[in-house]
């Protein structure tokens, strides 16, 4: 007698008539005598009948039209593939043209960016130095500051004008002289830019009540005024005054001096103190304006 489980493993193929002769004979023999396995076979046959009876679903009536539309629109993949297999004699010139256009755009943008960078750096720095807050200005005058000479070219000026930087170590007596002898006359010829700078500075310093500070401030203003005088004497124009962020003292005076007047200007400055001038490059036209940045060195 064959085992039921062995026969049940054969039933699926038995139904499909896929067993070899030996196994089929074995199954036939067993099924004749085993009602349970016969029942098992009948239930499987019933299932297969049901599966075969599942209604078929038809394709939509416009299936072929849809297919035509789909085949007319090449897929992204096939577009990519087409490009990949494009003849090189067409593809390479196209790619080169693209690269040339890109290079053209880059090189036309680059100079614009560089020139705008040049223009933007310096004014920002000046603004930062000049517009310090009142709090920063308070109690910042410290008498012990070492003189320091710095001679360098001013990179911020426009390409048309020459730029110089000079360092001026002011003499005490000169400062005092300027303060006592000509306080009112010095005020008058100062250019509007300098007046504005001084006015701002004074306004910023207003809360500082201490006499010492007032005095120091006065002296600093005097030094600026004496330089403005020298600028006027050289037929130049004072542009702006930069104050030190921490000490609040005047640090730089910017001026425009006609190139021909530079020796006179330097002579005037030498009257005020020790002057250090960088080796000069001669200017072609005497009438051309030279941007001079005067660094003030306090030796008190």
């Amino acid at each position, binding site marked *: 007698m064959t085992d039921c489980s062995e026969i049940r*493993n054969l*039933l*699926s*193929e038995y139904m*499909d008539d*896929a067993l070899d002769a030996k196994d089929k004979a074995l199954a036939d023999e067993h099924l004749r005598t085993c009602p349970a396995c016969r029942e098992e076979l009948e*239930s*499987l046959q*019933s*299932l*297969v009948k*049901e*599966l*075969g*009876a*599942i*209604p*078929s*679903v*038809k*394709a*939509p009536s416009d*299936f*072929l039209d*849809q*297919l035509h539309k*789909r*085949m007319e629109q090449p897929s992204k993949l096939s577009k990519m593939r087409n490009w990949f297999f494009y003849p090189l004699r067409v593809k390479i010139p196209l790619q080169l043209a693209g690269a040339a256009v890109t290079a053209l755009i880059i090189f036309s943008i680059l100079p614009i960016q560089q020139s705008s960078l040049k223009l933007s750096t310096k004014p920002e720095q000046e603004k930062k130095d000049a517009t310090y807050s009142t709090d920063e200005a308070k109690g910042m005058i410290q008498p012990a500051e070492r003189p320091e000479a710095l001679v360098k070219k001013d990179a911020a000026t426009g390409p048309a004008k020459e730029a110089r930087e000079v360092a001026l170590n002011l003499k005490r007596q000169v400062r005092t002289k300027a303060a006592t002898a000509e306080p009112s006359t010095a005020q008058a010829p100062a250019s509007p830019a300098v007046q504005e700078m001084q006015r701002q500075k004074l306004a910023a310093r207003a809360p500082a009540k201490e006499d010492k500070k007032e005095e120091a401030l006065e002296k600093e203003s005097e030094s600026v005024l004496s330089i403005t005088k020298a600028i006027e004497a050289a037929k130049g124009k004072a542009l702006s005054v930069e104050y030190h962020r921490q000490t609040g003292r005047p640090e730089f005076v910017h001026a425009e001096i006609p190139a021909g007047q530079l020796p006179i200007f330097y002579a005037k400055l030498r009257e005020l103190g020790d002057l250090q001038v960088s080796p000069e490059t001669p200017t072609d036209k005497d009438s051309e304006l030279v941007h001079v940045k005067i660094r003030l060195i306090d030796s008190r």
Partner: protein
Amino acid sequence: VTSSGDDALLIKAFQKGDKKAFDELVIRHKDRIFNLCYRFLGDYEEANDSAQEAFVKAYGSLKTFRLESAFSTWLYRIAVNTCKNKLGSSAYKAKRKTVSLDNPGSPSDEPSPMMEIQNGAPSPLARMEEKEKTTLVQRALDTLPTEFKMVVTLRDVEGLSYEEIAEVTGLNLGTVKSRIARARTDLRNRLRGVL
């Protein structure tokens, strides 16, 4: 029923440059391919998409098709692979999830109104009972794991031979037989009391 001899003639015509011959092949096979896709995917739109894709692929490869195997078997193989890819795609899985949340029943329970059903219709009561039974069988089939659903559908719904199923699925004959046996037993167990 399509004859493979006619298919062979159409394929030769296509390979000689008669593009219209392909249309004829589509007309002859579209319903079976569509039905197969619908049985696998349980979604009308997805089935249509996959069936269309299968024919597009067939069009692309038909030039090099050698008449060693039947065109229908070859086409089934393309369709089965297309459906398998779709079943594995995240977009399809997300869609199935949404459908099953919206409607706890199987999405293939109710044929959409667009569907045309090939069915002879006896008395209303018998039709109702028959329909209910069919619904339950379909639901049970739908819950089978893909690898079992595929072989049993090809065998018992589509009527392919073991050898054809082996060719279509790429499985060896022994695996086809054992999977069909296992799928049938599983389905019968699920449908006890219905059959």
